[in-house]
């Protein structure tokens, strides 16, 4: 009996020990993540004597230091900002005069289950909705003075239908049978307006589905939605509902050709994207005209969401006989409007087989622009009208282009307008012969007016970078590659959207037969397009980067080649403008050879080392009396001082940087405090440390806010994200998202700016500058090519170098070179077959070489941890969400890997240089005491390990003893017998 007690108890103790040991192991690996949740800390700093200066200050306290009172003011300011942002980014898509709603519209019904389950933001790392602050659609309308049909809302709340966003996706809309007679009886009383809201949800790890649980494309109008609209229309036909207003709560470009279908009786439509925490409060004001909508789309809205060339090769595609996956960027540069508008121009000019049936999805007889497109890039209506004139275009000697345009409000109500500046560069014989693709129209820059009263004018001066007109030519300079500016005629034009701007260019060229997006004949306005002739071919102006570094092909051959034809010549035909019959086919079951597999999944570190310069020797742990704060203001090029500073550290301390567990631990040798970081583009993924310590503000979603086209709003967004950093005690924010909307299905579109790389270049630079200037490191997501969530970990992306540089990389270039962003997160995918985290061509040659960028690069979560040395030498500085990889790196260095040590010194330089320009230095002095600590939960776990370990040992010992004595007694009895 006693023996059984000991046996049983030892099993119990062992189970407790195994559990606590497992938790301890997990805690060791994910220490920072657990600290972020449980509020622990792995280090602290305090200042003895006089506190140091606060170089980065919050605007919401008198002394610039965060406080509870400052927290309160910040939240008020952020809520107000979100309302303002929402008011400017909502896009008025369709309006037959029903909007703005008249003042006698008082009682409304909110239709659509999403009115009680809206998408405030899509699923991705970032802030959690603070339930105490969130404004629901119903609350927003009630606060604005409307009476809302509560019976209908309560019925939606009680319905078990759910929106699914996982391995199964469904829009979560109720069927027609949901609307019982008793429910329908309430419509008339609340029939001043039917506000019908449709939502879509995708996000991190999940693309929108080409076919969802309803068997329908997730971006299409679903049968339940169609039934709902028809039902509402039937009440409208009977006079029981006066107006039908549709709200689109989707960050993904939906199919919208049904809006004008008389079967649905839609009077107006407002696109609202993902409004964030409080953005819904602006919706009633937009509908009533208190705010005049001024948003414009940052994507092309195709009639058929599957019609984009990129979508032909997007999703789950595996190599033949291999589990590895790929995405073929056969569209080249023709993403979004660049495809539709370019093909349109060639259709008008009757060339290059533009009218062929290749790539037709919605056209009835050969490719027809008006049938393929519903709303073009840059589209957006207003309650007023504007007249824009292009006053002048000046090509300056410093390679900038100054555009002056005057905007006049010719309508009856105040409003804001956007001057969208586009360019057309010549498509020449050189381009055709050398596979340099050219879009017929290209966004160059933009500016939004102030609020213009009726009759008021404003002249805007926009200075754009001529560099954005250059095209990548892989054959330039005898095959070394480079940016070129063709000889020929350049047009700078303005327009209400990309299509309008192109029509103006066509008018200037003397073309005829133009149509608008509805198929109506238009003449274009040649006065809105100013041309300039460049007499000579130019391949020298941009042969060197703005940092003076030679720019040449990096991805044309070798392990970094991104073109599939490099491995299998002639296998892939990239879409070329000179023959629209090359509209991409879907490439399935492509082959992968052993060389490609080795690059993708092997370790080519030894091969890489052969191409590097001989490593330098360093003598570490050499005290130079330099602390972290002493390096403030030290120039990057002061190699001597940086070497002295970093040589004070041990290998272990140098390696500490590579383990990023929501930040890095303190380094006491140089008095560098622990630093923290948070996710993501829509706000911090953590709690505030002041006030009621609630969840960080969820901003209007980045992709939604992009539709404001308002640089000042994005500057303020950068300011607010940096303000949040003060109050949540972080120094680095993972954002903005800068990849492009390659396809309307891409799950992360909500946290990227646009389908257009130049839009991201311009707007990203504005936001990053604001974030950095206020003291938070902007960590761009995800360099580069994170354009689909399906198979995002390791998907091999094949593309031309022109597409890579002009589309995928462009936004990052703007953020880093112009905006001063000091950090980036490497994408999960491979470029070609080389994972980004191991891609020296990208991370070192382009980003640190050509762009002369000095920031640090983090992997994405847990990526490439099997080849840390290769990644660090390739240009990775940190491994995201890992706590133990530093030990592996230190071990390799101590074993004699000098290349790794050299890379580690560079990594540390980038890291410290970056954080010396952040709020981490606030209050630090030479007398600051920095200590390493152990989080409380870790101490508790270790204590439990000891207690359970002792219990286990004691009970096992007891069991063995009892078994042994029992055996002896039995042996004695036997002997006696």
């Amino acid at each position, binding site marked *: 009996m006693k023996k*059984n*007690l000991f*046996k*049983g108890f*030892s*099993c*119990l103790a*062992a*189970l407790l*020990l*195994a*559990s606590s*040991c*497992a*938790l301890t*192991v*997990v805690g060791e*690996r*994910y220490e920072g*993540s657990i600290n972020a949740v449980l509020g622990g800390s792995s280090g602290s700093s305090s200042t003895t004597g006089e506190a140091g200066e606060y170089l980065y200050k919050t605007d919401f306290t008198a002394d610039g230091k965060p406080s509870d009172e400052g927290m309160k003011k910040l939240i008020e300011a952020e809520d107000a900002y979100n309302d303002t942002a929402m008011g400017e980014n909502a896009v008025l898509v369709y309006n037959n005069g029903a909007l703005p709603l008249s003042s006698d519209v008082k009682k409304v019904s909110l239709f659509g289950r999403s009115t009680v389950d809206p998408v405030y933001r899509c*699923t*991705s*790392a970032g802030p959690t909705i603070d339930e105490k602050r969130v404004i629901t659609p119903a609350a927003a309308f009630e606060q604005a003075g409307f009476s809302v049909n509560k019976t209908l809302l309560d019925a939606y709340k009680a319905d078990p239908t759910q929106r699914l966003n996982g391995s199964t996706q469904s829009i979560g809309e109720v069927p027609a049978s949901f609307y019982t007679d008793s429910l329908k009886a309430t419509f008339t009383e609340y029939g001043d307006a039917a506000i019908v809201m449709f939502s879509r949800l995708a*996000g*991190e*790890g999940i693309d929108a589905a080409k076919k969802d649980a309803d068997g329908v494309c997730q971006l299409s109008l679903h049968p339940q939605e169609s039934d709902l609209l028809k039902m509402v229309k039937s009440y409208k036909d009977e006079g029981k509902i006066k107006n039908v207003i549709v709200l689109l709560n989707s960050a993904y470009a939906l199919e919208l050709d049904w809006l004008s279908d008389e079967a649905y009786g839609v009077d107006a439509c407002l696109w609202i994207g993902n409004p964030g925490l409080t953005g819904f409060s602006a919706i009633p004001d937009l509908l009533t005209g208190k705010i005049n909508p001024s948003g414009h789309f940052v994507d092309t809205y195709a009639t058929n969401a599957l019609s984009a060339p990129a979508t032909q090769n997007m999703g789950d595609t595996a190599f033949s006989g291999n589990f590895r996956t790929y995405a073929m960027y056969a569209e080249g540069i023709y993403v979004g409007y660049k495809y539709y508008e370019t093909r349109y121009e060639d259709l008008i000019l009757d060339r290059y087989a533009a009218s062929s049936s290749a790539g037709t999805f919605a056209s009835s007889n050969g490719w027809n622009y008006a049938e393929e497109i519903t709303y073009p890039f840059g589209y957006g209506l207003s309650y007023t009208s504007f007249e824009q004139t292009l006053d002048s275009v000046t090509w300056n000697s410093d390679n900038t282009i100054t555009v002056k345009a005057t905007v006049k409000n010719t309508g009856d109500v105040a409003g804001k307008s956007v001057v969208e500046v586009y360019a057309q560069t010549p498509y020449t014989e050189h381009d055709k012969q050398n596979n340099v693709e050219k879009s017929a129209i290209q966004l160059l820059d933009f500016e939004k007016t102030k609020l213009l009263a009726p009759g008021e004018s404003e002249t805007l001066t926009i200075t754009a970078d001529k560099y954005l007109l250059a095209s990548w030519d892989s054959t330039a300079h005898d095959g070394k590659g480079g940016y070129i500016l063709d000889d020929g005629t350049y047009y700078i034009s303005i327009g209400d959207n990309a299509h309008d701007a192109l029509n103006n260019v066509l008018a200037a060229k003397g073309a005829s037969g133009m149509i608008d997006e509805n198929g109506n004949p238009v003449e274009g306005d040649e006065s809105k397009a100013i041309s300039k002739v460049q007499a000579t071919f130019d391949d020298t102006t941009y042969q060197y980067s703005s940092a003076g570094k030679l720019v040449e092909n990096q991805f044309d051959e070798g392990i970094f080649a991104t073109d599939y034809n490099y491995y299998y010549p002639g296998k892939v035909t990239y879409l070329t403008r000179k023959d629209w019959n090359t509209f991409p086919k879907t490439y399935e079951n492509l082959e992968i050879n052993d060389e490609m597999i080795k690059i993708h999944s092997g370790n080519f570190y030894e091969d890489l080392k052969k191409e590097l310069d001989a490593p330098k020797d360093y003598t570490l742990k050499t005290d130079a009396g330099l602390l972290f704060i002493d390096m403030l203001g030290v120039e990057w090029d002061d190699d001597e001082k940086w070497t002295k500073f970093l040589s004070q550290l041990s290998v272990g301390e140098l390696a500490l940087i590579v383990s990023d567990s929501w930040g890095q631990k303190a380094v006491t040798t140089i008095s560098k405090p622990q630093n923290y970081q948070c996710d993501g583009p829509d706000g911090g993924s953590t709690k505030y440390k002041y006030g009621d310590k609630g969840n960080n503000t969820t901003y209007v979603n980045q992709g939604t806010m992009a539709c404001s086209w308002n640089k000042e709003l994005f500057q303020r967004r950068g300011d607010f994200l940096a303000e949040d950093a003060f109050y949540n005690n972080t120094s680095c924010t993972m954002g903005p998202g800068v990849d492009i909307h390659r396809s309307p299905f891409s799950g992360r579109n909500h946290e990227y700016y646009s389908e257009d790389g130049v839009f991201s270049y311009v707007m990203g630079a504005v936001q990053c500058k604001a974030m950095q200037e206020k003291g938070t490191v902007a960590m761009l997501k995800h360099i580069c090519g994170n354009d689909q969530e399906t198979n995002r*970990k390791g998907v091999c992306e094949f593309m031309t170098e022109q597409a890579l540089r002009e589309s995928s990389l462009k936004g990052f270039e703007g953020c880093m070179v112009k905006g001063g962003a000091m950090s980036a997160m490497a994408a999960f995918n491979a470029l070609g077959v080389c994972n980004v985290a191991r891609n020296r061509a990208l991370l070192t040659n382009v980003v640190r070489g050509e762009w002369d960028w000095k920031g640090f690069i983090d992997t994405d*979560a*847990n990526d490439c941890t099997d080849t840390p040395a290769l990644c660090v030498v390739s240009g990775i500085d940190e491994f995201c*969400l890992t706590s133990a990889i530093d030990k592996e790196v230190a071990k390799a260095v101590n074993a004699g890997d000098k290349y790794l040590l050299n890379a580690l010194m560079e990594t540390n330089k980038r890291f410290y240089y970056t954080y010396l320009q952040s709020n981490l230095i606030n209050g630090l002095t030479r007398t600051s005491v920095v200590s390493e600590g152990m989080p409380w939960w870790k101490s508790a776990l270790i204590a439990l390990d000891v207690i359970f370990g002792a219990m286990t040992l004691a009970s096992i010992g007891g*069991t063995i003893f009892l*078994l042994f004595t*029992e*055996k002896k007694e039995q042996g004695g009895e036997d002997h006696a017998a």
Partner: protein
Amino acid sequence: MQLKKLLSCKTPVHFIAYALCLIGLIADILFLVLDGADQTFTIGCFACVLVGSIAGLAHFFFGWKNVLLWASSLLYTAAFGFHLSVALPSLSDWWNGVNFIGGNQELALAFGAIFLIIDLTLMVLNFFDKRAA
């Protein structure tokens, strides 16, 4: 006769334990087949379940003062510990709502539950273990 002798000194406790070990063995094979390539698989867990199941089944033949059943429970405990250390981070993605860590959470949860239930049952059985009269 030998079989009769073997059976005669077993109690219902023993037979429950053998059944569990057999289930555990089958589950362990499935664990390797279904989850072997996933990051929620550990060779430590697999090996401990394998040896623990064999030890438990071997008790039918060898008895050894019921040490084998006791060892089986301890091995299952070790297996659970190995599994928990990799399953927990993967399961945190469910809590986060974002795929940070990755891994097949459903399989991790299923096999973790199976091994834990077997372990807990074996633990309880050890309290009541005795030779048949």
